[in-house]
């Protein structure tokens, strides 16, 4: 698919389609991670994070693509993996690709995402049903009525209450985590 087409899909928030397509560029990132002390799960995780950074960045109104998406994604991954190595006090890094995008382009976006990881972790640790409910409602914008039907709640109201309860326990956990940090 052409890069421009992908950007259009991002603007119209077709995340599933975008991600599925963009995995075409995954192999070289995986190679890079494997060549630099990571496992393939690390590579998947890293790539997913990079996809999110890119997806959000490309969705913003002022975004212009300065290179191919392939190079862009690779550069994000490379930056994040180097960063991770640095945190583990491992310095050596061998590059796979020569071409790269200026890191200034996406450093801020990566930092924002890093801050969100804590909140995401809290959401993920809520347990399957809470997480599913919140994602369906807030992320996929599914109507409570439909969520109730799909997830087996007795009424729309029950689902709504449940939603707030989930959010509340998340808030408490997040608060606790933030004060401990």
């Amino acid at each position, binding site marked *: 698919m052409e890069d421009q087409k992908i950007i259009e899909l991002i603007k119209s928030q077709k995340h599933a389609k975008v991600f599925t397509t963009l*995995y075409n560029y995954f192999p070289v990132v995986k190679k890079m991670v494997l060549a630099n002390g990571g496992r393939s799960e690390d590579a998947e995780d890293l790539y997913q994070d990079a996809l999110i950074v890119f997806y959000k960045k490309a969705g913003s109104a002022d975004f212009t693509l300065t290179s191919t998406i392939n190079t862009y994604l690779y550069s994000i991954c490379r930056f994040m993996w180097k960063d991770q190595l640095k945190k583990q006090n491992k310095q050596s890094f061998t590059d796979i690709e020569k071409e790269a995008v200026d890191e200034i382009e996406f450093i801020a976006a990566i930092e924002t995402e890093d*801050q969100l990881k804590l909140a995401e972790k809290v959401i993920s640790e809520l347990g399957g049903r809470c997480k599913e409910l919140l994602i369906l409602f807030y992320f996929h914008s599914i109507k409570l009525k439909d969520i109730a039907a799909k997830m087996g709640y007795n009424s729309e109201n029950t689902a709504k209450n449940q939603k707030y309860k989930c959010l509340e326990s998340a808030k408490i956990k997040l608060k606790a985590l933030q004060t401990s940090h």
Partner: protein
Amino acid sequence: MRRELELMKTIENYLKGNLSAADKITFENKIKANPELQKEVELQKQLLEGIERAGLKQSAKQSLKKHRFNKNLRNWGLTGLAVAILTVSAIVLYNSVIKKNAKENAPQELPELNEQGDKLWSDADKFLELQNFELDAEKDTVIETKDGIVIAIPANSFLDASGKPAKGKIDLEVKEALHAADIMKAGLSTRSGDKLLETGGMFYINARQDGASLTIDTKNPLYAEIPTNEVKPGMQLFEGKRLPDGTIDWVNPKPIQKDLIPVDILSLDFYPPAYLDSLKSWGYNNKDKRFTDSLYYSFAAYFPDEHSARAKATADSIAAVAEASAAMVAAEMQVASDRGASKKEMAALEKKYAALNYKEKSLYPEGSLSEQLGNDSSFGVHGINPARVKAIWSDKFQNTLLATREFEERLPYIHRTCNESVLDMYVNNLDKNLCTIDSMVAQPRGNSESDGYISGYPEFLKFAARGDGKVKNGNTNVRLLKAYYEQKAKIYSEAISKTVNEFRNKQLKKDVDAAQKKMENANNESLRKSDNLMTEFNLNVTEAYRQLGYKKSTPAPMSVAAYGVAIQTTGWNNVDKYVMESTLARTTLDYTDPQSGKKAVINYEPLTISITDVKSYDRVLVYLLPDELNSFMRVEKKNEAFEEKLNELMSYKMVCIAYKGEESFYFSQDNVKPGTLTISLIKTTNADITNNVNKLGKLSQVKAMNDDLNYMAFEKEEAKRQVMLAAINELTNKVRPVIFPCMAAATAPVADSLAHFQ
């Protein structure tokens, strides 16, 4: 609703911009006044963003599965799977439907009895999420699980307690633990007895009808594909045995053997690697299978009949046959262009043709091209005979292991071995597992070439490790196919050699004809020129005598064979010499008799003919037909115009004929005078040109003109033929190393060592 929850609702409305303007201001004032509230808002904002992120992450993870699934579809061809295993066209592709939403991390409710009818359940059974698929037992079904296991379930593959195929709706239960986290969460170990295993994933599958477990018909088993990033060699399928302590021991390993799924053999690519891509990069239409086939198969002519011809043939004839073989392709190429398949190619051809046409004298620079083609005798051939590939790439081999994507994957490697015995190994063992043949190819075997000697190709071990099996219920007439292969390969080879030979002979005959015509034309031309010269000389000399008052009425006849006449005597001859010089050079004669003081003047004056848009024509011929001559003069082109000097004693007709593609143009004028003439050509037909030429006057002139025009037409065709042969030659040379990769490799070191000397 509790107060806290009400507050959250308000904050949410605020964050989502759902508050009215007034409420918004009130709320914002409250926030400013209350740092606690401000913190709550901030937290909730982060949570919403966290949820979005979690959603995106989930989407990204699921997309990976989707991506792999799509890739699998492409690689293995699910339609092929349906046709071959299921033999019914309707496929139902299920997405997993999770029926029971038991609490995460809490044990699942389990039926009383497990699939073997006892009450033993393991921890994994309890902690892995159940995926339930409801399906029709009498229909072929393909399901994909959450983590991407694809299971093909043929109709009637489940048996009930009485051993009869189950009818109607059944429930398929799947639990999967493909990733490390799932495996650990489920308390699964990778233990077999006291050995540790490396796992590619674990799954549980069971079907029930009305709560009772069904068994799988071993004659009609399910087929599952487990997603993986890489295929590791030596993976085996273990059966899980539940132990009383809740763990599972893995027992009874079986090598994983992948059934091969035949696809339409004609949809596969059996060409040498890079063949189609190379053609495309050279601007040929690589989608035209008629063209790509005939080009590839024409190289079978490198392998003439193995019993008779090879023994007799010298290296030269093999090479000649092979080279000329591509001519057949040219015919195909023309067919392709006629159908508009390759306009670009045709344009290039015509451009070359035009270039050749103007360089009339260098039309045959170093002998004809087909002679040149025949001279390239410097190589023998080493590679896989395309005729053998043609023999297997046919409907006869549908539904064998050759008609599989897996075999297609091996073909580039087979081509690269350049050893026909490797190909034969696969064709002659259609009843074996593909991975078995892979190992056979990897090992050295045989003593001599006739014995099917191969030195062992370790690169095939990689394939052997994949454990590719055979086509289930594949073509059983394996022995017959083997014989068919041998026979067809031979027949194709002979037929192609014969066709190629015929083409070559035809081209050789045309070469001879062309050479003869060319010679005749050269003779005619020199005859015409000397004839013209003599007539004009006589005319001039008679006039010179008249002006000088000499009585001699008839000048001595000049030898026609020589232009430069050696005249050593004086007297009349002196005048003759000047007249001859002037006639030859077509310059004005201005002679004063030294004795009488009388002058003889015969003027030659220039004529310049400009033709409008002269560059737009492929070729332009300008003729002058003097009444006094029996033949014509062709006017030479100089600097975009046609120039000649006219003899004042003669009166000239001018005829101009031009061609542009298939169109013809004509112009004629009587009584042309010296000076500058600008003419515009008029479009006409060849027939009209013939008519006009016939009306020009003297019969002898008409005949000479027609002869010349015919020769020009022949020359045009001949040039086209030469261009075609050149194109074939070029293509053949380019494609040869692609079809026979070892030959390319063999010539490279020679070039290297040459470079070394320089």
